């Protein structure tokens, strides 16, 4: 054991002599989170085991168990196998590999450390990205006998991708190459050339041996030619992310609105950037409304000032709308608001990315529906080449356009991890299937400064004493849409509801008289009707539409224009045979005779709804009964 006696963090003596002094010292420690990356057999677990062992995080009973395990399962002969301390789950202990992200803890006199231990296997990019996402620093391990490998490149690329600013290149197992300086220099030079090519500017290279203990906590006599810091010195002194974040603009994603009574309304959240003081002028995004911070409330008394990394509750001087998902900024440093982004995605699910499908996107404290377009390219993490891709499979990394169903406050990931990093959630399985980092907003929406309207849609709906809704009827021509829609409207009016019925008659002759019946025109027709319906819903109306609207995607498009719960797809289900038999307007006859082109059901398809809010089978109920049922669902 080389030079281990000097270990800087054995504080036993102080603990025994003056526990109060020790506690005061420990109380002022800072917290560093780091990740270790390496290939199988690079000695990663051994290094972490060594750090825990040297910081006295291993007790005698654990050590006794470790010695027993080492003899039974260890790969180090009669010596203690530190790796066994770290390899937790039974399955991986048997296989001798690490299969997931694990977090370890140790402390020195200066800092507390949380280590994310992540596996080095190819198929586990997902785990490494997860572990790296919270890290201030990355230790990239290289086996001195093997030099820079494909895995080293991959790990470095991921570390840089996730935005870790401090990289330590730990050239491990120096004992096994006889502490050969020339070989070490060669490895560092090779890594430097590669690192520069992917944008890692600076890194600290250290020759170590996790097994022997060289240059971990104390300078090793085995490497007299090495003049740099020990690994521990770097860990104890490197700048923390939270320090850097506190120097950026103030950002508070609102997590929860605290309303214990009518006299108190507080906005709670974890500060994601900058500093805030009572009296500061602030702006709430996306509404754009401004106010002034009255108090920074904590149980221990109000604070004058709070910084990035603190969980706080703010109260504002004015009664303005502000809820979960909104972001509070300084009035003169707002964040952008947009609904289309270019993002780097890391796919984390066995089921590949489904282009165009809706996923939940969670970023900060907001969750919205989002779709992903076909990737612009995928990155081959081994060669770093950009390759064409139609989708992203498990562990694939690519760049793609992401659209959200409404404009959201954001910042590029480089500027703020919290407001630029998101996860994608499968709407069916609820699994976290991907992670993304916003590069920039794509669309004009970032230039639109949303006018804060004091008369909101809630206010308008409130005046009408109703909840806005769009009843979107769909079905074949002659299915009975207009008949039932008319009945529904009459009944609603009798109930003092404010309604409007949009149908072919009042739309085709005015707003859409420039449109024909080609597929493109039919899609545009529905888009315009959708937009009008949305405006009317914003005005507080209950809108009823009666159009064939044969394509699922267009109906979905309209659904996404509206707040959740306000769109009711009403499927008027009549078979083609029945509709054709009725043929009230004689249209089927004309279509069959070839006089009408693109007629739904005849030479143009009808895509029935998969999960409509309301399903009316006209063979089973009268128009009157159908109208009753629809109103029952709308106003329970």
């Amino acid at each position, binding site marked *: 054991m080389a030079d281990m006696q000097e270990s800087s963090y054995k504080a036993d003596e102080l603990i025994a002599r003056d526990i*109060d002094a020790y506690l005061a010292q420990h109380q002022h420690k800072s917290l560093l989170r780091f990740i270790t990356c390496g290939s199988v057999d690079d000695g990663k677990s051994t290094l972490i085991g060594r750090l825990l062992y040297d910081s006295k995080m291993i007790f005698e009973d654990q050590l006794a168990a470790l010695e027993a395990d080492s003899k039974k399962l260890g790969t180090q002969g009669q010596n203690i196998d530190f790796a066994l301390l770290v390899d937790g789950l039974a399955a991986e202990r048997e296989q001798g590999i690490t299969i997931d992200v694990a977090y370890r803890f140790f402390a020195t006199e200066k800092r507390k450390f949380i280590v994310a231990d992540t596996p080095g296997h190819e198929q586990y990019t997902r785990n490494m990205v997860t572990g790296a996402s919270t890290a201030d620093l990355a230790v990239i391990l290289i086996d001195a006998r093997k030099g820079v490998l494909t895995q080293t490149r991959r790990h470095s690329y991921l570390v840089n991708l996730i935005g870790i600013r401090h990289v330590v290149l730990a050239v491990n197992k120096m004992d096994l190459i006889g502490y050969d300086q020339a070989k070490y220099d060669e490895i560092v030079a090779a890594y430097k050339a590669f690192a520069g090519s992917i944008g890692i500017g600076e890194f600290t290279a250290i020759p170590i041996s996790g097994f022997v203990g060289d240059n971990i906590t104390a300078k090793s006599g085995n490497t007299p030619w090495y003049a740099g810091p020990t690994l521990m010195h770097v860990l104890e002194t490197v700048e923390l992310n939270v320090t850097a974040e506190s120097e950026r603009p103030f950002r508070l994603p609102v997590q929860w609105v605290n309303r214990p009574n009518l006299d108190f309304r507080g906005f709670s959240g974890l500060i994601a950037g900058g500093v805030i003081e009572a009296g500061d002028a602030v702006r709430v995004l996306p509404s754009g409304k401004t106010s002034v911070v009255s108090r920074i409330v904590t149980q221990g008394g109000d604070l004058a000032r709070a910084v990035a990394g603190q969980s706080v509750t703010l109260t504002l001087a004015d009664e303005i709308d502000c809820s979960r998902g909104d972001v509070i900024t300084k009035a003169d440093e707002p964040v952008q608001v947009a609904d289309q982004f270019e993002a780097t995605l890391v796919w984390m699910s066995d089921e590949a990315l489904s282009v165009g499908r809706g996923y*939940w996107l969670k970023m900060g404290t907001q969750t919205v529906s989002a779709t992903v377009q076909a990737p612009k390219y995928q990155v081959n993490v081994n060669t770093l080449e950009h390759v064409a891709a139609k989708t992203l499979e498990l562990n694939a990394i690519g760049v793609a356009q992401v659209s959200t169903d409404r404009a959201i406050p954001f910042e590029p990931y480089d500027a703020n991890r919290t407001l630029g990093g998101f996860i994608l959630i499968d709407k069916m399985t609820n699994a976290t299937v991907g992670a993304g980092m916003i590069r920039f907003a794509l669309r004009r929406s970032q230039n639109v400064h949303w006018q804060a309207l004091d008369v909101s849609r809630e206010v308008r709906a409130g005046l009408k004493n109703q909840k806005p809704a769009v009843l979107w009827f769909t079905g074949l021509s002659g299915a009975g849409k207009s008949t039932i829609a008319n009945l529904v409207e009459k009944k609603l009016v009798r109930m003092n509801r404010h309604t409007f019925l949009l149908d072919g008659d009042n739309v085709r002759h005015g707003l859409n008289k420039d449109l024909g019946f080609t597929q493109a025109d039919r899609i545009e027709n529905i888009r315009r009707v959708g937009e009008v319906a949305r405006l009317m819903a914003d005005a507080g109306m209950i809108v009823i539409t009666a159009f064939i609207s044969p394509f699922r995607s267009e109906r979905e498009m309209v659904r996404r224009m509206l707040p959740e719960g306000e769109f009711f797809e009403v499927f008027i289900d009549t078979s083609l045979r029945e509709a054709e038999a009725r043929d009230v307007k004689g249209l089927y006859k004309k279509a069959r005779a070839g006089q009408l082109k693109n007629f739904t059901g005849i030479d143009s398809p009808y895509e029935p709804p998969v999960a409509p809010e309301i399903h009316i089978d006209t063979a089973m109920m009268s128009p009157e009964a159908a109208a009753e049922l629809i109103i029952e669902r709308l106003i329970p």
Partner: protein
Amino acid sequence: MAFEAGRGLTHLERLEAESIHILREVVAETEKPVMLYSVGKDSAVMLHLARKAFYPSPPPFPLLHVDTTWKFRAMYELRDRMARESGMELLVYHNPEAMEKGINPFDHGALHTDMWKTEGLKQALDKYGFDAAFGGARRDEEKSRAKERIFSFRSANHRWDPKNQRPELWNLYNARKAKGESIRVFPISNWTELDIWQYIHLENIPIVPLYFAAKRPVVERDGLLIMVDDERFRLKDGEVPMEKSVRFRTLGCYPLTGAVESEATTLPEVIQEMLLTTTSERQGRVIDKDAGGASMEKKKQEGYF
């Protein structure tokens, strides 16, 4: 812990902020959360954090104590006091089957923990329909805990699948779940035993007096000092309780919890002893040793917290 201008946040301030963020996230995203309250020091810290997170509101969820009827008397006293002080509803659940069969630590060994705690917890969660339950587990306690997520999913049968955990990136937690599924949430995952003690010290958090040394009646069994806390304790022939100055590093059912001989009567002294000691915290617990190295992992898969 008032933040002082001109210096960075300390590790305890960071941990506190992270825990508060987690507590609020669960309240914002789940329908019916509950806090599992076991009256130990970790529960004490978790409750304290909850009161901070929602101040000036009381924490918007009840406390649930899945009781075995075999806890130390001092634990029941503190439990009732803390529920009163926090203004939170306290739910106490006893597995009726364990009650009926008189399951106890003297006759039933591992079955005692299984019936009262593992089964009792599942029954209580099902009975009230809680979809999220806070627990005070820490990753530094045990190897399988080190790999568990902060938001840890349970199937409708309360099972944990370590190989199918959701990735947790940044501080984004995915709380979505299907009907019947639930989440166990561990707000103090990243705290160590020392952090807990230090925080209790700094924040002056009330804890069960058993953590401090006092003269208590104990007997020695299988190398553990067991306290004779009430008349139900079955003394073996010739066994006579000795008065010893002892304290507890961890609290559970009194007949299953080993005391350590100690003179530490203040928090700094307790911390001092902990730091200079050479055995780990869970070593005083009988239940970890039931099935060898992977004991806790197995229990967790079956639904134990």
